[in-house]
């Protein structure tokens, strides 16, 4: 039973990682590790995402043209950082996802109110 819940939670997380990333990079440009930790902090650990999910999602979003990236020197002697920022297309995509999310969450909430 607990396994079922785990699997279900995992699927919700997977779906929400893209939205979380789009939200974070729409506020300001951020680098990969910052996105990993920000998701953790902003959701107070509720959305615990692994590097193994964030980077593939970032690369996919970039390939789809929703975000772009640029390398930036931080300080000499240290690896440069790859900053991601949202594109116009990404903003539009984000708005749609937010609307879908709210509609869906609202619908489920109304459904559960019937209990």
């Amino acid at each position, binding site marked *: 039973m607990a396994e079922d819940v785990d699997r279900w939670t995992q699927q919700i997380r997977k779906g929400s990682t893209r939205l979380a990333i789009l939200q974070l990079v729409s506020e300001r440009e951020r*680098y*990969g*590790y*910052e996105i990993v*930790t920000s998701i953790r902090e902003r959701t107070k650990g509720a959305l615990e995402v*692994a*590097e*193994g*999910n964030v*980077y*593939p999602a970032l*690369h*996919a979003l970039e*390939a789809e043209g929703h975000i772009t990236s640029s*390398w930036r020197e931080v*300080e000499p*002697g*240290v*690896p*440069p*950082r*790859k900053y991601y920022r949202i594109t116009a297309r990404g903003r539009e995509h984000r708005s749609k996802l937010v609307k879908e999310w709210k509609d869906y969450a609202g619908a489920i909430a109304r459904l559960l109110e019937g209990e």
Partner: protein
Amino acid sequence: MQMTTEARAWLDPTVRRILARHPLGDAERAGITYELMSHLHAAGEARATAAGHSEVSRQDLELALMEAGGEEGLAAAFVQPLSKPLERVLFWRRAGAFAIDVLLLGIALTFVHGGVTLLLAPLFGAGTGVSSDESLWGLFPWGFHDSSLPPAFQALIAVASAVVVMGYFTLLEAREGRSLGKRALELRVMRVDGQPLTSRDAFLRNLAKLQPFVLILDTLVMLLAFPKEKQRVSDRIVGTIVVRA
């Protein structure tokens, strides 16, 4: 935040080693190498800051790597979305790559033959009129058999040529995963499990290239019997494939 000397010495080779097992284009490899190094540094920096250190130590980086799923987990996260499904290559591109290799080896062998002749011809009494009309060309073209030379000397040149040819393919395919011809045509050899070739693999899969009829037969069997697997008989025995990469 700066890294300790030890941390710096660890980071670059570790990341390259992690990615070495994965087939990637050169541009993609460079991008992922930097992003992975950048990630480990940033994660290590967070650890160092939390511990009140002023430099990122090697241990910080190693812990960051473990936290991110270890070598395999991290490589999978970075590489998978970028690596296209491996496309095995059947004939034309490989034939083209081989033609380039033959051309380059032909040029190199001209010099090798010249050198061997210059150094050792007097020992064999070459040029003294003792010669053979038998041409061994069909048997071993890499030797460019000059029928004005005594057969024993032709054989010596043939052996030297074989060493050069096998050395070229074995060294490059085991170290770089591809000969210069394959590099030019964006091909790469790997084991069927995706691992790089060992020297033994590279040597064995290239042996057939010493003898044209053997190579033609090897390739014909591939075209007729293994068009799906896209492996020469040599490839099937050794367990290697040629892919676009």
